[in-house]
């Protein structure tokens, strides 16, 4: 196929699929903990790291990752101090991140590089970025598998998990760092403005049809990988921005799943009635 003759597209597929595997793993826990907005906050805040990276002449993905980890830990810290109004922590850090990103972006000498992080730049992935995505993606996935039971228990019942001997504080801190790493990698692929679509939409689709927790994770990965592959094909042949088209495919998939589910339920009801 013509698309695979280009090195940049092969890189794009590899990076896109890795991110599409790790993000739903993180996304399932985020959605079940009712923290969907954290994805938006961290991805928007990562822009401050991108700008700082471009100014300081270090790789923007590394800059985004450092700022993302700091922001995620700050959100956790504020959440602990304001347990009754924990969602405020997300708004506080997002305001700080976007404010900083806006000011720092004025000092970036190559505005095009900064803009590419808004909607993603999957087709301009450098070798270093690809190594980062492969290495850190493997790390995120390995830690997620190792902490599978603990994360499941905390997502369901934090208090119960603590009583059963789960080291909730440690697991939460590790998960916060994993989230920050995954989001800063995804920001490069789909763009900081669209990361939450990759976190929430595959999980939302999966939750409509899954019959178990494990299935929820597997189906979410399938939805995310499928959206990314279709998105990359459309972007190559139709010239769409990859991040934007991947996000739109996610939304249409969700609507399609909802529609099919409703039709299936009605058909089943009708069948039972006729019997």
């Amino acid at each position, binding site marked *: 196929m013509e698309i695979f003759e280009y090195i940049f597209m092969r890189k794009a597929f590899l990076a896109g699929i890795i991110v599409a595997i790790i993000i739903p793993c993180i996304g399932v826990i985020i959605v079940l903990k009712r923290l969907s907005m954290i994805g938006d906050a961290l991805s928007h805040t990562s822009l401050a790291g991108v700008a700082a990276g471009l100014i300081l002449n270090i790789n923007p993905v590394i800059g985004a990752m450092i700022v993302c980890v700091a922001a995620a830990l700050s959100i956790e810290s504020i959440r602990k101090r304001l347990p009754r109004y924990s969602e405020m922590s997300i708004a506080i850090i997002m305001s700080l991140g976007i404010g900083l990103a806006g000011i720092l972006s004025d000092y970036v000498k190559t505005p095009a590089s900064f803009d590419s992080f808004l909607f993603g730049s999957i087709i301009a992935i450098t070798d270093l970025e690809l190594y980062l995505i492969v290495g850190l993606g493997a790390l995120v996935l390995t830690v997620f598998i190792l902490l599978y039971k603990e994360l499941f228990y905390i997502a369901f019942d934090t208090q119960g998990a603590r*009583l059963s001997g789960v080291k909730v504080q440690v697991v939460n801190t590790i998960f916060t760092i994993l989230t920050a790493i995954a989001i800063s990698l995804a920001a490069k692929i789909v763009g900081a403005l669209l990361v939450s679509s990759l976190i929430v939409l595959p999980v939302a689709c*999966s939750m409509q049809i*899954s019959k*178990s927790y494990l299935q929820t994770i597997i189906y979410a990965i399938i939805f995310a990988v499928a959206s990314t592959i279709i998105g990359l094909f459309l972007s190559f042949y139709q010239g769409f921005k990859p991040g934007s088209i991947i996000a739109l495919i996610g939304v249409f998939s969700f609507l399609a799943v909802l529609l099919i589910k409703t039709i299936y339920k009605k058909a089943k009801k009708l069948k039972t009635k006729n019997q």
Partner: protein
Amino acid sequence: MEDIIKVNDLYFSYGTHPVLRRLDFYLRQGEFVAILGSNGSGKSTLLKILLGQLQADQGCIELFGQDIKRFKDYNRIGYVAQNSISLCSNFPAKVIEIVGLGLYGSPFKNKKQQALQALEAVGMQDYAHSLIGKLSGGQKQRVMLAKALASNCDLLILDEPTTGVDSQTTEHIYQILKDKTTQQGKTVLIVTHDQECAARYCSRILCLGAGSLLYLTKEQVLLEQKYKHKHTETEDGNGDI
């Protein structure tokens, strides 16, 4: 019999608002004890202190003979929280996956079998592969009880586990708990508003009011229940008095 819980001279307040005052009580192995009390009397606060989520202002608490400040074996305690039904709503997991969480860190080899046995104990074995979110409130409550039972813990603490559950399921839950104490020597502490069930199934009843505990006999509880019932009937115009 070993003292599973021993509380001496316990004080607790939220800021300047005192909740528990000079509280003394004990719970021995194999007992099924109910704590009654009106809303806001401090029942859930007491449980939170026992579970290490809140720290007492003053007093001495021992769990399994150990000072609560040094106590780490919380996996010996099974807990069913007041909000346990709400945890299950729309959660995308199978019943057996949820019950399996209760076996976290347990040494059992066949955890699936253990989880199924716990479900069988609460009469929910046929729902093992159903989605937890699709069950009724009473069924969810029984699953949460199975999760606590699966851990094979020595002490079960339940915070209003039969709220919103029909009377038949409530009786069933109390019977399961009673069997656990009489047949397996487990200890159960239940916070409830259900005076009738408490009087019928529990070995002792404590009443929490104005921050202090009062020991009640079953006869006292039943008499109060009877009086309340008659009083309500009189107000409705249907009573004999």
